[in-house]
Each structure stands twice: as structure tokens, then as C-alpha cells.
């Protein structure tokens, strides 16, 4: 299936390679570079590139391209999914998946890749199993290793999870503080049209967990209003039957961080938009263009809107903008023509605004459409859909765990057309 794997950085340097079958020279990446040079933006590189004998399936993440080479028919999503999963595992191991962290841990990365696939087919992709096979870099362990002269980097026995019914969980987990945290995170994707009415609004939510529980706990998580969730994807640990019959999440959790479910609440349910914009953008010859935007909270259920950032990508003919915000700071990137206004939190007393002039290139035609505005914000202690965790029960272990639930609403792809 997957033949080879390359990691390429932003400057076009192939700094890592791994082959699961015979070796393919890294010059194959030239096809990739060729395709890349045709694209205006890094996002536009086609995910699948066809070369005479190979197919390059790539993803772009953290300023790095991860390129998988396949030679025969294979479901493309299989490869994409693998690449993303690999990046997740690297992040899990090294806290971040960047060029430096990968370069610092060449050997571990290579060993991991070797364990993940056999003959190009996934062998062990569960972080919990991999962590037993190959220990993540750990300062304390490095010291013990140096002192004792032994190496504990790899395990000599097969991780028990691999054979059990719960391959995602390590055995023999022990914590002194048993705790389980659940973060309910919701992202609003919306398009708001010129007049301020909602064209489309959807909510995508996740329940991300951090579970540090000893032994083999069996958890049951129930919601007050599970009916909200009509389109859900589950971590393999969840018992689908129980969800279907009782609408509760019953599972033996993996150890550590993981995403329990993600759900999607479609557009037919009305979504309350927590923030609204008033905008007035006008282009005129010279430096007389006008830019005036005001932000005000709308339906926030009494919570404060925080971390508000407004982005505006101007057309190429705009030279510069001179603006004065009533709050926060703004910056203008003259290359990408992106204006970023970091608003911060919206105080209930006064609503932030930004005003000023746009200067256009002289002689260039006046742009016919106003630039769309992108908004980022977050509201803590609120799940916009109204989803609420009812209770978490633990069976199978005797201790009393510490349990915590957090809610957070964020803007996903939130766009305002002007």
C-alpha cells in the first residue's frame, strides 16, 4: 500500500525519508515541487499528485509537507488518514510536530514509522501501544539510562494491548491521583451575508478527554440532552450498542489524551450567533477609501466573548490601511494584504470598533467587491448547542476519581461577507 514517506520543509528540503518496500529515490519529490510551484498558496497544492509511475499523496501541517508515495491502487483517504494519524502520534510523543522536534528525535521517528506500518499496511497505530513499544523521550529516563548503562528505549515484550479486546489501552496503568477531564469544545462555522443575516451556521463539537485513571476503569458518560447529537463519530472504544439503545457513552478509555467523540449539528437547527458585526467599507481612488467595523455581542447567554480577532484580506490593489481601533491592536501585512485586528475581550459596557482609511494603488481599478471578514473568538463555560454532560460513572475500579468537565465555544470558519 504505502510505499515510501518523505517529510519536506517549507524551503523544499527533504529532511526525512522512510521506505517500507524497496527504496524510491527522493528525486521523486521533484514532481511535488513542480506542482507546488504552480500554486499560489500553500493550501492549494493538490492532495494527490500523479506522476508517471507513482502517486504522491500529501498533507500540509505545521509548515511541513508529509508526502506518502504509493504505486498501486489504494483508497486515498486511507493514506491521508494515516498521514494525519502519524502527525498526531509525533505530536503526542514530542509535544509538537515541527521540523526541529522531528530532527531532534530522528531515531524515534524512524523507529515509530517502522512500527506503524509493515509492508505499507498499518500494524500498530494506537498511541498507547506504540508508547509501550518505543518509549517517548523523557528526561528522567535518559538520566537513569546513562547512570545504569542500560537502555530502556524499547520494550522487549509485545504490548498486551495489541492482543486484548481493548487495544487502545495500556495495561498496568498506575496513577497516584486518579483524574478524568472532559472538554466539550464546540466550533461554529458560519457565513453571514452583507445584511447581517445568517446564510449558514453549523456547529461541530468534540469531546476531548484527558484520562489518568489506574487499572481498567469502565466509564459511562451521559448527557442531559443526548438527542442533540444526531451525527456523531466515535472513538473505537465506545460501545456503539449502548449508544444506540440508551444514548450513553460507555467505554474503557485509552490512557492519556484522546478525542472521545466528535459531532456535527447541521444547519437545520437554528444556531445562535454570539457576535455581530457592523461594517462599512468603501473604496475610492487614492487614499480616501473608508474602513469602519464595529463588533457587538449578540446571543452570548450572559458570557463574555474573549480572544476576539478580526481578519480581513484585502485585494492586491490595496497599498496600505491606516486605522485606529478603540481597543486592542491591529497589524497589516503588506505582502499578503492581510489586516489583523486583535480585539481581546468584549466588555459589556463598550463595544470595540476600528476606523480609518484604505489607500489604493494609484491607477489600479477600484475593487468591485468588499473583502470578506473572518472572525475568531472563544467563549468559555458555554457549549453553544446547549449540550450538557449529566454524569460520569466509573465501574470496575474502587478508587474515587477526580472528574472535571469544561465547556468552550470557539469560532470555526466564521466568515462575514461585506
Amino acid at each position: 500500500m504505502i510505499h515510501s514517506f518523505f517529510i519536506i520543509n517549507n524551503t523544499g528540503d527533504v529532511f526525512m525519508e522512510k521506505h517500507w518496500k524497496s527504496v524510491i529515490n527522493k528525486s521523486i519529490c521533484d514532481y511535488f515541487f513542480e506542482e507546488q510551484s504552480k500554486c499560489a498558496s500553500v493550501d492549494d497544492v493538490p492532495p494527490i499528485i500523479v506522476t508517471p509511475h507513482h502517486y504522491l499523496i500529501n498533507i500540509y501541517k505545521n509548515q511541513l509537507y508529509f508526502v506518502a508515495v504509493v504505486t498501486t491502487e489504494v483508497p486515498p483517504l486511507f493514506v491521508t488518514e494515516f498521514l494525519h494519524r502519524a502527525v498526531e502520534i509525533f505530536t503526542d510523543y514530542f509535544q509538537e510536530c515541527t521540523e526541529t522536534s522531528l530532527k531532534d528525535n530522528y531515531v524515534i521517528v524512524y523507529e515509530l514509522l517502522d512500527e506503524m506500518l509493515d509492508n505499507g499496511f498499518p500494524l500498530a497505530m494506537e498511541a498507547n501501544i506504540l508508547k509501550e513499544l518505543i518509549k517517548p523521550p523523557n528526561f528522567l529516563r535518559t538520566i537513569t539510562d546513562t547512570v545504569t548503562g542500560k537502555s530502556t528505549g524499547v520494550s522487549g515484550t509485545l504490548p498486551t494491548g495489541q492482543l486484548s479486546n481493548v487495544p487502545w489501552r495500556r495495561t498496568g496503568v498506575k496513577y497516584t491521583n486518579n483524574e478524568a477531564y472532559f472538554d466539550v469544545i464546540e466550533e461554529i462555522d458560519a457565513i453571514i451575508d452583507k445584511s447581517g443575516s445568517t446564510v449558514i451556521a453549523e456547529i461541530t463539537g468534540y469531546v476531548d478527554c484527558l484520562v489518568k485513571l489506574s487499572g481498567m476503569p469502565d466509564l459511562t458518560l451521559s448527557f442531559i440532552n443526548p438527542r442533540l447529537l444526531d451525527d456523531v463519530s466515535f472513538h473505537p472504544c465506545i460501545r456503539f450498542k449502548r449508544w444506540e439503545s440508551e444514548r450513553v457513552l460507555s467505554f474503557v478509555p485509552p490512557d492519556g489524551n484522546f478525542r472521545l467523540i466528535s459531532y456535527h449539528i447541521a444547519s437545520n437547527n437554528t444556531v445562535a450567533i454570539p457576535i455581530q458585526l457592523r461594517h462599512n467599507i468603501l473604496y475610492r481612488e487614492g487614499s480616501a477609501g473608508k474602513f469602519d467595523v464595529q463588533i457587538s455581542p449578540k446571543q452570548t447567554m450572559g458570557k463574555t466573548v474573549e480572544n476576539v480577532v478580526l481578519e480581513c484580506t484585502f485585494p492586491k490593489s490595496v497599498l496600505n490601511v491606516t486605522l485606529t481601533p478603540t481597543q486592542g491592536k491591529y497589524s497589516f501585512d503588506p505582502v499578503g494584504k492581510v489586516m489583523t485586528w486583535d480585539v481581546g475581550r468584549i466588555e459589556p459596557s463598550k463595544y470595540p470598533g476600528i476606523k480609518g482609511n484604505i489607500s489604493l494603488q494609484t491607477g489600479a481599478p477600484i475593487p468591485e467587491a468588499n473583502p470578506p471578514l473572518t472572525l475568531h473568538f472563544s467563549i468559555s463555560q458555554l457549549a453553544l448547542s446547549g449540550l450538557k454532560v449529566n454524569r460520569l460513572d466509573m465501574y470496575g475500579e474502587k478508587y474515587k476519581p477526580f472528574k472535571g468537565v469544561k465547556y468552550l465555544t470557539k469560532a470555526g470558519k466564521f466568515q462575514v461577507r461585506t
Partner: protein
Amino acid sequence: MSGNGLHVGTGGYANERPPSSTGSAEMDPATDPASSGFFSNDYKRHDDLKSMLDSNKDTSKLEAMKRIIGMVAKGKDASDLFPAVVKNVVSKNLEVKKLVYVYLTRYAEEQQDLALLSISTFQRALKDPNQLIRASALRVLSSIRVQMIAPIMMLAIKESVMDMSPFVRKTAAHAIPKMYSLDPEQKEQLIEVIEKLLADKTTLVAGSAIQAFEEVCPERIDLIHKNYRKLCNLLVDVEEWGQVVIINMLTRYARTQFTNPNKDEMQDEADRPFYDTDKEEEEEGAAEEKPQPKTYIMDPDHRLLLRQTKPLLNSRNAAVVMAVAQLYHHCAPKSEVGIVSRSLIRLLRSHKEVQYVVLCNIATMSIKRKGMFEPYLKSFYVRMNDPAPIKLLKLEILTNLATETNISTILRELQTYVTSSDKEFAAATIQAIGRCASSIAEITDTCLNGLVRLMSNRDESVVAESVVVIKKLLQTQSSGHKDIIIHMARMVDTITVPMARASILWLIGEYSDRVPKIAPDVLRKMAKGFISEEDIVKLQILNLAAKLFITNSKQTKLLVQYVFNLAKYDQNYDIRDRARFLRQVVMPGENSRGLFTKHAKKIFLATKPAPVLESKFKDRDQFQLGTLSHVINKRSTGYQELPDWPEVEPDPSVRNVEVVMPWTEKTTTKERKDKKPKKEAFYSDEESSSADEDSEEESSDDESEEDSSEEESNQEESDDESGSDGDEKSEKSEESKEDSEDESEEENSDEESEEGSEESDSASEEEVKPKARVTNKTDKKTPGAPAQSTGPASRDFLLDLDDCKCNECLVCIALKSSVIDKVTLYCHCNK
């Protein structure tokens, strides 16, 4: 060597050396150890590494190996170290060993002779009591691509498929394709091995076995028959990657073994809106209950496949969801395909690469199945910061979904895209408008007017695109639109994009009868600037000239001659050719007889078929959805055609597995193959087996029900009837059944653990506490067991009750005292 070791020892005191390079520093004190690997002269390149590898201290070996693997990972050549590395294959240190293995798989191919040195080590390791060591030895042995060891490999594979440990068997399954690519002549033998693996009952092996099957002998579909039901039932518990492979294979299987569920409706491919997806359950039930017209009855095995894959739509893995979606698209009755759309829409929130592939597939699906995605129309609205390929795909889908009812919404949305600052996208939008206009007659005029307005746009590419689209639209229209043509004729002066100019000229030539006064004047203008035009424009000028000469020779004769003369001396030979040809046809000289001249009008001004504006994805449905070939719209290597449904259903009895009543005899292997995985399955639903297996299962369940309430036995009955559609119902009854078991059969708690661990928590709240604790005990034991046990007990940590003759454990006692007499539960005494 020993001296060296001593040196290293003393080196430990020399504090000025960096600790990581003690080994090399001792051997070669003159060079800086850190840099010598890369910067020293070629002849003694890697000398330090070699000496570190030769040292007998594990730490320095490890350090050296780490640096070597670092080089391998960076793509630097480390092949000259091969002799030094291969020696360490016998190292006792696991980490060193592992790195040597990694190195070997990379370079063995280049150093075949030396690689042979390591073979005996692997052969020995294949007999190691530790399953991880056996597995990794097999992995490396099979990854060494050396022709000469093929027989050894074959032997190793054959042995490993019989291994006690499922993990080793999985590795063996992976080794099969490697073996096949090394020596294709072994195919027959490998097929035998695959057959054995297919019969394997563990979920761990299933996916890899099917992958091996797909790579070696996908044409031997007959091997699947006996395993079909098992695979379907196992599917939920197989790891995600195996699920993808299995579902894809089963799609092909279904297309060869079952008949087309939509045969009767083939004729009316009407795009009636499907139904509300919210009603999916009812719909599904209804589809089964009401007898289909013309008596199509779905094979129960076909139904089983569809039923078992449905829960996988909730998988977190996009590839699994896509695999199920394509299965439904290709194999499900039309009324049921709708359920996949919601899951596909969910994937659109995923990474952009996933989005791209999913959108490609939706684009193809949406041509034939509009109704399926219509409720989600708005999910395809474009955001200005979407990546370019995704914008185009969304546009494509929006156009595909356009119907008379939603067209006004779509047009309004498209209008905002036209003003986008991304001009390529704006141009694509105009094309999309054109397609909508040509497919929906009511809006053609509105669209035309809108496009004409766009022609006064400031942006040239937008104007050009509108011209081209208008030209196509006018062609589909039979009459009128004189004003538009006049308007376009005026634009010739301003538009510079060649394609647009050519389109206008063609249009004027074609409809010169509608604008008799203007046409010759346009030709005059064009003749003036002929030499500076692009080739495609020149060709159209020639066409225009010829057509005008035919209709209006009086006014244009001289002009036409002038144009032909200019073209005669053009640099481009196509244009010269065309000019010569046209001249001969329309104005033949004295000495030629002008045979064509009287037919010239018929030739040039015949009514031309209107271009069909259709989706680029129209021809893509020849490929199976979800495949690479589909996304790139080209047959990729190794693509397997999705077979057409057979006219007559092949014998369904081939899938029957001999059913032996479990309590009559010692379980035969066949019976086990079928029963066991179901029991082992942690999360799979036990009721989900196909109808004929149900009966068997039911009978076993019945016994455990002895003290359960009447109410449940009622449910039991309903289970019997429900067959396939009572899915949900039967699950519920299953749950409650288990509840009652939990409550009533205290003494059997141990043997129930398997089911208990699955469902124990379903017991009511107050019951839970003591109950759960009991279950937990065994629960903990379960995963722990296989690791320590390597002897005969390791075969599978759960033994069939038949095998348990200990007479000590709870199960045996219970069995003896005939508290229970069923054999489907498992005990944990491990004897």
C-alpha cells in the same frame, strides 16, 4: 577488543570528552568525534562508527546505531557500514538489535551476500518463546528483498500462520505480499497459506489476511464464500485499517454474488427527492417490510453486509466512512443509500485533504443522486478562504444539485462568488451559471441577462468567460436574442482575450442572418487587424469570412478575398491550409469545377448540435467510488474493475458453513471458526449474526433465560421473527436480557464475564456497584493473560468451555450440576 573495552572504561574519567562519543574518542583521539561522521575524508569515512560498532560495550554500539539510523532517516548513504552493522544482529541488547533490524531492511537489497549472514539469526529467532521476537524476526526476514532466501521465507511463513500468537499470524499475513512480489511463481503455495489465514478467527488477523488476499489473488473470490458471514460479523471489531480493506473487498464480493437490488428501478433514474434523512430508520424498515415490486428479495447475506457496515458510518476514521459510503452507493437498494450522506457531510469538517477526496466523491454521487445531498446544499457554500481545489469542487456540486426549486437560492449564492477577488474562481462560477442555465429551462433567460451584464465587468477574464458561456447558451437556444448578439459584436473592439474574441466571431458568423448589417462591418474591422491576432482568432476570422461570403457575397467579396490573401502568407500552416481550403470551396478558380460550391451553404451553415454543458464528473462513475482511480480520473496500476451485477444470483448456499450443534460433539474446527470470534468480540453485537445463525444462538440463549421473566421470552419471540429489520428492537431485548442475567445468576458471574464486561454496566444504577466489581476482576485478567503465557496456554486466552475439563472452575461446576448446560460461555480458568 577487550583492550578497547578497557580504554572505554578509562575514558569515562576523562571529563573533557563529551560523554556521548566516548567510544569513538578513544579509538581516534585526533579527530573531533562529533563531526567526523560527516566531514572526514572518504577513505576513513565512518571509521569512528565502525569502531564503535566493534566495541563490546552496548552503549557505544547503541550510540553508533542511533547515528547510523539518523543517517538512514535523512536519506544519506550508509551502505558501506553494512558489514560492521550486520555483525551486531546477534546483539543481546534489544534496542541495538532493533536498530540493526531497521538498518537491515533498508540495505539488505543492496548487499545481498552479506545479508545472508544474518539469516540464521532470524531462523533461530523464529523459534523464540517471545512472540514479539518471533514476529519481528519474521518481519525483517520477509523485508529482506533477497531472491535467494525465498524458500526460507516461504517456510517461515508457512510455520508462522500456524503460530499460537495472533500477532505472529498477523505478521505472517503481511509477509505474504512481500513474498509474492519477490517470487510471483510461489503464488499457488501462497494461496494455500492465505486460505488458512482467511479462516482465522481473530479480529487482529482478519484485516491483514484480506489485504494479502487482495494483493495476491483478488480473483479467487471463491475463497471468501466460507468466510463471508464470519467477516461480516467480525467487521465491527476489526481495527480501522482492516475495516477499510475488508469493506472494499466485500463490495466486490457483493457485486459478484448478489443480484442488483435496484434492477426494477433501473429505468426511472428520476431524481425524485429521496426522503428526509431523519426518517432513515423507518425508511429502512419500510423498504424491507413491503414486498418490492416484481418480487425482488434481498439475499439475507446481502442484508447482513449492509446491516453490519452501517454502524461504521460513525467511525472516526474518514477512510472507513468513505468505504461504507461507497459500499452503499454501489450495493444498496436505492432507498437506503441516503443514510450515508450525513456522515459524508460530517467529513467535510475534517482536514482539507480529506475534504478534497470526499468532495470528489460527492460530486460523482450527486450527479445520479441529487436528492441525497439536497438537504445539505448549504454545506457546499464556498468560503473565500477555502483552498482553490476545494472551491472548484464545491461549485461543481452546487451545480449538480441545482433543481427548479432551489435554483434561485443557488443563483443568489453564485452571484456573490462572481465578485470574488479570485478571478479563476469567478470564471469557474460563470461556467457554473451557464450549466445551471442550460439544464433548467426556466432560468435560461434570467441567466443570459445576468451574463450580459457581466460582460461590462472590469475584469477581463470574467468578461471573456461570460462571452464563451453566452455563446454556448445561445447555441442551445433556437431563436431570438438579436440584442445580445449586437451587444457582443460591439465588444469585439474592447475584449482582448483570444478565446472570447473567437467566440464572438463564431457567433456572428453563425447567426449572421440575424444581424445582416453588422456582420460585414465586424469582418471589416477584423480584417484590418488580422495580422496581429492570435491563431484561434484568425481561424475564426476565416470562418466568418467564408460564411459571410456564402450569405452575402455582394457586400463582402472583396473583403473576403483580402482576408484569404492575408491568411495565405501567414506563418502558421494551419491558417494557410484553412485559407486555401476555404477559398477552394467558396470561391473556386476558373479551372476547378467547384463541385462543393453549390453545397457550401449546407456545409458551413448546417445547424450544429448544441454543446452539452455537463459535469466534469459525468464519466467518473465508471470507477469505483473512494478509489485512487476515481479521484485522479484515470486507471491507476492495480485498479480492479467493479464487476456488474450478475443476471442470476449465484448459488447462495456456498456461503453456508456447516453448523454443528455446539453441545453435541467436541467442537469441530469449522464450528469454532464461526462461533468463536463472535464471542471474543468485545464490542460486536451478538444478535447481529445472520438469520440462520440466529437460531443457533437463540437456542443457546434460551437456556440462560430459564429464570428470566416472561416478558423477555416475548421479546425473544419477536426476535425470531424480526430477522433482519428488527435490528434495534432485538438489541434492546438483548440488553435487557443481559440485565436480567446479571441480576439473577449471581453464581455464574464468573463465566459471564465475557458478556459481562461488554454489557455489565447496562444494569440499573443501584445494581451496578457490586456487580461491576466482579466483572472487573476478570476484565483485568483478560488482557493481561496472553503476555505472560507463551507455552501451550497462550493459544488464546479464552478457552472454549469444551476444552475446560478442570471440574474446578465455576463453569464446570455449574455445568455438572446442570445449572447451565450451554456451551457458548467461556471460562477463565485457563486450563
